[in-house]
């Protein structure tokens, strides 16, 4: 780790101000950033921890919308969303291990947008919106490819607003070493229709499988997607699976998510 300055503001406004400084970097739960620093692959001048901002923590439900503070840990989401949005709670409860779940935050995960992270699938499938210190961004506009988002420099995710779906489930097939999603599919059915979001599979990061959405809008049963094939082109190929395997798993996991929803 290289030397850096550290600050732990108590309010969003203080954090925004701190992040305006040169070489400043926001620190959520640190589950990606801290290992990166330890490997000397990043050298921010100032780390701005968001962990001290009480207003960014917690889960609340009002009028069919579940709101999760950007600094809320996965473990807190697993507890706080269990009644209102059990599919999201289940997803959060299976991220990493207890140490990760009690440190890592939803805002940190979304800002990083790891192509194998779980949360992006839930946010995209549920049609959630990402609330920042300066605006509200629809999920469809937020994810911009592997490790890329619509966030501007110094912009902080203060909350995520999920319209609670009528039926939903997340089916994750884990990569054996990291236990990130080799393929994860979040399926959400609401009055507006069906949305299917896939993480882990694509070189472009999380994406919506519109072909499955159309089929499931007509018939929300696993059988409706059995015959569908996601395209292997653009899928990730690595030690743990070929593009063809990942494309195949997209279909399998979609059917399993529908069955569980």
């Amino acid at each position: 780790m290289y030397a850096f300055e550290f600050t732990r503001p108590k309010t969003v406004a203080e954090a925004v101000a701190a992040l305006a400084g040169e070489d400043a970097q926001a620190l959520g739960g640190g589950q990606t950033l801290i290992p990166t620093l330890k490997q000397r692959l990043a050298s921010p001048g100032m780390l701005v921890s968001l962990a001290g901002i009480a207003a960014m923590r917690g889960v609340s439900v009002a009028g069919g919308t579940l709101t999760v503070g950007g600094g809320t840990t996965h473990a807190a989401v697993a507890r706080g969303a269990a009644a209102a949005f059990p599919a999201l709670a289940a997803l959060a409860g299976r991220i990493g291990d207890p140490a990760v779940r009690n440190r890592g935050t939803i805002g940190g995960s979304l800002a990083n947008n790891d192509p194998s992270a779980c949360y992006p699938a839930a946010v995209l499938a549920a049609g959630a919106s990402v609330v920042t210190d300066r605006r509200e961004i629809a999920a469809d506009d937020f994810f911009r490819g592997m490790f890329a988002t619509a966030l501007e420099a110094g912009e902080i995710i203060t909350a995520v607003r999920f319209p609670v779906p009528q039926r939903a489930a997340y089916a994750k097939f884990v990569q054996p070493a990291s236990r990130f999603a080799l393929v994860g599919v979040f399926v959400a059915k609401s009055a507006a229709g069906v949305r299917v979001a896939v993480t882990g599979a694509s070189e472009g990061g999380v994406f919506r499988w519109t072909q499955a959405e159309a089929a499931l809008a007509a018939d929300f049963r696993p059988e409706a997607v059995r015959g569908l094939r996601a395209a292997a082109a653009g899928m990730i190929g690595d030690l743990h699976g070929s593009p063809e395997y990942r494309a195949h798993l997209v279909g399998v996991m979609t059917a399993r998510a529908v069955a569980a929803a």
Partner: protein
Amino acid sequence: MPKDSGIGASIKRREDVRFLTGRGRYTDDINLRGQAHVAFLRSNVAHGRLRGVDTAAAAAMPGVVRIFTGEDFAAVGGLPCGWQVTGRDGQVMKEPKHPVLAHGKVRHVGDPIAAVVAETYEQARDAAEAIAVDIESLPAVVDMAAALAPGSALVHDDLGTNLCYDWGFIEDSKAAVAAAIAAAHHVTTLDLVNNRLIPNAMEPRVAVGDYNSASGESTLYTTSQNPHVIRLLMGAFVLGIPEHKLRVVAPDVGGGFGSKIFHYAEEALCTFAARALNRPVKWTAQRSESFVTDAHGRDHVTRIELALDRDGHFLAIRTSTLANMGAYLSTFAPSVPTYLHGTLMAGNYKTPHIYVNVKAVFTNTVPVDAYRGAGRPEATFQLERVIDKAAREMGIDPVEIRRRNFVDAFPYQTPVAVAYDTGNYHATMDKLVTIADLAGFEKRRAASAAKGLLRGLGLNCYIEACGIAPSHLVGQLGARAGLYESATVRVNATGGIVVMTGSHSHGQGHETTFAQVIADMIGIPEAQVEIVHGDTANAPMGMGTYGSRSLAVGGSAMVRAANKIISKARKIAAHLMEAAEGDIELKDGKFRVAGTDKSVDWGAVCLAAYVPHNYPLAELEPGLEETAFYDPANFTFPAGAYACEVEVDPETGRVTIDRFAAADDFGNIVNPMVVDGQVHGGIGQGIGQALLERAVYDANGQLLSGTYMDYAMPRADDLPSYVVDHSCATPCTHNPLGVKGCGEAGAIGSPPAVVNAVIDALHRGGHAHVTHIDMPLSPARVWAAMQG
């Protein structure tokens, strides 16, 4: 009635109190006054010519004490290899120099180029990054077959080849084997890979060098399975320090699995630097360094042929293997694919003709050496996979084909040099059939099928040569060391006992089990016995712990020393009771005169030895301390039968191990609970190899599986609850305890059982075209195999 003390008792491990409460003393816990820290600059290319190492800017950075490069080691030796293999042509193996710090060329990612000593580790690392290295990148030699092709780049230019040796075993058998295969009713052939593994001990390697300028004594604290071996190799061959001026201490060690047998560059560097700088010097591996510096394991590519008659009797076995040595010869690397592998190719079976060919190959990868099982898992995997394939081809039940070929009379002279002293392979198979509930398989298969899952059953039998090793034998085979073991038993004046053993516990539980043996022999509580190991300053010259040898060889030395103690104590007791020595019996910690009620207890005899007021001084020296060395007459041959049941998800290819049973014959058992633990750990490691672990290099020699994000270690939920049994005991015939060793069995016996089970599941599920899948059987590989 289970025993609660002595040999055969499942008493809890005394060392766990300190391990589980954070009070162990590992090498990284050692911090000496005035200590400086080392960071290594390592090659990030697999193969290149070192054109320049400019340390000027780095040397001027804050806290830097000294920077060492390959030039500083020009006058000392390279890291030695402890085994010389002679090839088919009668020529000895190619043995390249292995410099402490790279000189001339870098030969694998992780090869150390410079060592920076600074006041803090962070300062050392900052300076290491500031060293300007000029490397002319060369084509990397990664694939073994390509490495042997004409025109390949050479890992060591001076050798003129990447072939270390071409070994035939037994060369004189080659023609007879070929004839038997040509004439056979059926020949089954299988091509397979034994996947390269990274050891991943929980504790990374650490070295702390110290130097006392007043006495001229160097001390190395290191994470080692064999401190005396390190003292000898580093002192005599690398740094030129005689044993009496060099102390090596291996305190608590958190796992080794073989990887901490070897002498590593970092140990020599820290010892050398401490003397050069006259201050302590410490290095602790980062986990990412462990991946590219700890010797890797396995990495064999093999073709095996099994010839059978029409009844499924084995007639001949022929194997051809490429074995990866990596960039340099690690300490015992040449022995692993040869004498620890070829000698085991008979397995549990009467196969009259066997021929093994191994070509060892240099590549631009981390050196490969012994890893839990070391050669024996590779032998067992080939043999038990080809047997399973043959059984399927010939329509013979997998239990039956094994039974039909079992060695059933002992001693048994194999056609691959070793002679099994004892065993009962039908008994272990009978036990397995029961504890694995093979009769209930069909019902379980139907239940799995109802869930949409394919269930399969895989069997495996193994034999291993442990209790390594008879020195005269290994000497003939190229070992440059003896493989005896030692112990000193020191009895204190009030009867307490300290045993200093040349064995080394790095998780095995010697402090408990060795104490049980001594306590049992004398009839005193275990609490009166302390086991000390790991310090060359107090233990007699010992060869350490590996090859499942500690109890069989180290325990035997300890028994010998204890028998000397008992013999002398009996004489003292006879004197005290004015009886004939021949009439004295030792039982329950008391010496009695046979047939009388006269007795003297252990403590009184010990006190008399140290306060010899009433003592036969004319015949006996005072004191009660004895040392013994034990060199085994033969290897020991643990054996067993394993069964694995898996469920395969046909949609995803994911394999789940549902049941695993192990029936082992370890001979006599000192502590059944400790043995259970050893078997559990070994099976877990074997399942890791079978389903999860694989070190992968790309074509440029970059390690793709260089972190836990890509190198899959087994976790608790990857493993089932095991059923283990070691009641089928045929005691070893040639050591005093009748013990055989249990440390490696699980890792040897489990991978073939897992793979056989998956292949069985696929066949039962209609995928008859799948005859083999290389390990690890990841979901992606199993799914791809099902696609055809």
